[in-house]
């Protein structure tokens, strides 16, 4: 190749390169608006699942991506009612990107969903509202096959401890989520079935797994089986998905019983704290069973029938036993049906009694049957009748006691040889062996093998004891009573002896009080003042000197007082008082004012005499 030819080639290559570079630059410039346009035309919300085929035991992850609008804000999607899925959990992630100077954000909402049934299920559209325009995702079809364990039940959380940020919501029809509890009968009889229904109404999808706290059902026998049902209901034009939990209750006591509120805790999400929804408490007026119950009534309530069968119609008198199978069927608390007593009869001895209950809830009624087996051994040979077994119950619908009984059964007891163990009895073949589960050993039988005595009923044994005697103050007071009586008697005797020995001294000590009392009494009764003054003074002096002064002359009295150490002027006043009293008493004229002055003078005199006597 010549030099000119090489130069021409280089020029051509350079030109091609330049063209390519120009084209590339043009292409880039042209692509920028295209990318921007593509970004602008992308949907604001889209939904994707990680799998479209699964079993009822599995779960899928639904991601709902929401892109920021023109204003750069993100709207939260509205979660539709997912009839066929249970929401197990949710989470959120976000990202922000800058492309060609344009800032965009994305938020991805992740939901773990578990199907509740098999078939072709549909995840409905999620929607967002941007500037008055609704954007929605496309529905997604999911193929679901049956898993090994079936659909999950709403778990009943044993306890719920509200977190500090939990809020209790007032709620009711019209709210997007609310709960209620109802009973089907608020005036049942003791032992009558009551259905307790807890209902969760939800018009929106719940995020997170709610936890349910059942009431305690104090005062009820609760068979611990919560039935669950799901259905849709429209209230005031609002469509709700309803989850209903039903408990079968049997009141065990009469009176007013209250079922505490049930609680449902909705876990906290990224947009709100946890919410506790509570039902209203329910009050029932449980009626006691009426009196005049049959003697063999042991508390069964419901509607029952009775049937009987035996494992044989012919036994060896010494080697065989008969298994009598009594079946009580009907509606009621089958789990607690008492075993009817085998009637006392000299023809049979009852060796063992076992019972087994089978019941289920259907059409709103708890019904089933209890089968009781009696192991009977004949006590004589020949045609022996198994007597009817009676069973009494209270029918709450008819509101009366009813007694049903089995038909008598004839057993031919043939002569035998030696006594055989009871366990040699042939069991009764079950009519449907495949449907009968392996019976668990009955507790009564188990207890009998250990030799334990049976349980007692009220009245079988000693009565309830009140407060312990030794803890009663009255008990110890009774112990002390004779001692107190003895001590009191002793004191009384000592006092009597003392009084006897010190009569004169006591009279002397009480003389002034006694005389004043006489004067006061005379004033109160308006007695003759002269007479009262004389009696008071005489009595006082008698008590003080220990000698009767009533019969003394005035001179003798004065001498005696002088001998007692009374001052002459006081003796003179005593004499004056005595004289004035006599004059007033026996004089021709009764002067009331003179009498009062004698009375007053006597009172003053007594006081001074007391001082003299005491000194």
């Amino acid at each position, binding site marked *: 190749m010549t030099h000119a030819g090489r130069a021409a080639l280089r020029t051509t290559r350079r030109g091609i390169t330049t063209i390519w570079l120009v084209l590339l630059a043009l292409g880039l410039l042209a692509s920028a608006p295209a990318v921007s346009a593509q970004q602008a035309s992308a949907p604001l919300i889209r939904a994707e699942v990680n799998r479209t085929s699964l079993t009822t035991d599995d779960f899928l992850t639904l991601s709902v991506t929401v892109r920021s609008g023109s204003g750069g804000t993100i709207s939260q999607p509205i979660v539709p009612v997912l009839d066929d899925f249970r929401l197990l959990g949710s989470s959120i992630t976000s990202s922000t990107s800058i492309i060609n100077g344009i800032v965009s954000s994305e938020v991805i909402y992740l939901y773990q969903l578990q199907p509740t049934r098999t078939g072709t299920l549909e995840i409905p559209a999620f929607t967002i509202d941007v500037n008055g325009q609704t954007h929605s995702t496309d529905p997604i079809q999911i193929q679901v096959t049956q898993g090994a364990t079936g659909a999950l039940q709403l778990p009943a959380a044993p306890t719920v401890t509200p977190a500090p940020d939990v809020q209790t919501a007032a709620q009711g029809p019209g709210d997007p989520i609310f709960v209620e509890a109802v009973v089907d009968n608020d005036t049942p009889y003791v032992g009558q079935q009551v259905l307790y229904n807890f209902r969760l109404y939800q018009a929106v999808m719940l995020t997170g797994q709610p936890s349910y706290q059942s009431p305690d059902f104090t005062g009820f026998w609760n068979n611990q089986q919560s039935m669950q049902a799901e259905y849709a209901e429209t209230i005031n034009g609002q469509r709700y998905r309803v989850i209903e939990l039903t408990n079968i209750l049997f009141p*065990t006591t009469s009176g007013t019983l209250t079922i505490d509120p049930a609680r449902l805790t909705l876990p906290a999400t990224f947009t709100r704290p946890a919410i506790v929804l509570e039902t209203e408490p329910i009050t029932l007026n449980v009626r006691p069973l009426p009196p005049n119950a049959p003697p063999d009534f042991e508390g069964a309530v419901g509607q029952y029938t009775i049937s009987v069968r035996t494992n044989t119609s012919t036994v060896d008198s010494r080697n065989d036993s008969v298994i009598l199978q009594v079946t009580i069927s009907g509606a009621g608390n089958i789990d607690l049906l008492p075993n009817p007593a085998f009637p006392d009869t000299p023809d049979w001895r009852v060796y063992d009694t076992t019972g087994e209950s089978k019941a289920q809830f259907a059409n709103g009624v708890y019904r089933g049957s209890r089968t009781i087996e009696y192991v009977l051994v004949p006590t004589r040979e020949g045609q022996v009748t198994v007597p009817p077994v009676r069973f009494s119950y209270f029918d709450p619908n008819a509101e009366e006691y009813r007694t049903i009984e089995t038909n008598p059964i004839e057993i031919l007891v043939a002569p035998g040889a030696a006594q055989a163990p009871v366990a040699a009895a042939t069991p009764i073949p079950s009519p449907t062996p495949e449907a009968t589960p392996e019976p668990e050993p009955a507790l009564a039988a188990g207890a009998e093998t250990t030799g334990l005595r049976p349980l007692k009923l009220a009245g079988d*044994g000693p009565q309830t004891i009140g407060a312990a005697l030794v803890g009663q103050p009255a008990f110890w007071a009774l112990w002390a009573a004779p001692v107190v009586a003895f001590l009191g008697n002793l004191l009384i005797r000592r006092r009597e002896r003392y009084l006897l020995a010190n009569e004169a001294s006591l009279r002397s000590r009480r003389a002034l009080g006694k005389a004043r009392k006489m004067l006061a009494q005379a004033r109160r009764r308006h007695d003759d003042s002269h007479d009262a003054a004389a009696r008071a003074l005489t009595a006082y002096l008698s008590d003080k000197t220990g000698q009767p002064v009533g019969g003394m002359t005035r001179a003798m009295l004065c001498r005696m007082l002088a001998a007692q150490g009374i001052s002459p002027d006081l003796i003179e006043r005593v004499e004056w008082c005595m004289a004035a009293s006599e004059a007033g008493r026996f004089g021709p004229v009764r002067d009331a004012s003179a009498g009062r002055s004698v009375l007053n003078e006597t009172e003053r005199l007594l006081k001074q005499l007391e001082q003299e006597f005491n000194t």
Partner: protein
Amino acid sequence: MSLRRVWTLLILLAIIALGGWLYRDARPVALNDADAQTLRVARQLYQTGQTAEAAAMLQQLADSGVTSAEVYYNLGTVYQVLGDHASAIYYLRLAHALAPRDPDIQANLNIARSEIDAPPPRDDALQQVLRLVEANLSLDETALIALGLWLAFALLILITGALRRGVLRGLLRFVMLLVGIATLAAALVFGVRIYYELTEPPAVIVMPNVHPRPAIDGEANTRISLPPGSEVRVMQLEDGWARITLPGSQVQGWIPALALRPLSPFYNISI
């Protein structure tokens, strides 16, 4: 009326009033309808094999403060079936304390006791007498007998003192002597029971692997193990520890008080 007669009359009236008060507060009463129904339901549960549910129901009844030999007996029996021998012995002992002559309670208590590997009690003479009395009379019955004899003795003294000399007075004095001796014996037995209840209240060990220690801060004696259901007497409580003794044995030591369930109503006030 002399003061002495007035006093005697007052004391008699006081005794009648106190007796009425005591009867009102401490007389045995039947279970109310609700409790009787609960007892019946629990029995049905037990009969139908729902032993744990029966135990829960009876436990609720016992915890509500019902003091009934029937409730305690049923609860103890149910616990025995459940294999909780300690609780069985505890409640059967409570039942036995209230109704000591009930053969069912005695039988089930003996069965429960035979299930545990506790050292057999070796009582001294006084404790043997006490055990004999406890096996036949409740504390309340002992108290009532002693009180009745004491009041009868006091009444005889009163009547004898009021009578003039004669055959009747001589007869009454003889009766008074007999009643006095009986009163002394009954008061002695009652006093000993109260003394033991106050100073060494009984309790049942309810926890496994309980080894007594010679001192609170000492090493546990692992050679001696008191199985759940062991019946002990508590001599001292201190800082959450209890000094216990096995009746009639040389076994003494400190164990955590939480391992005990007291049988005596005086447990908390006596030691």
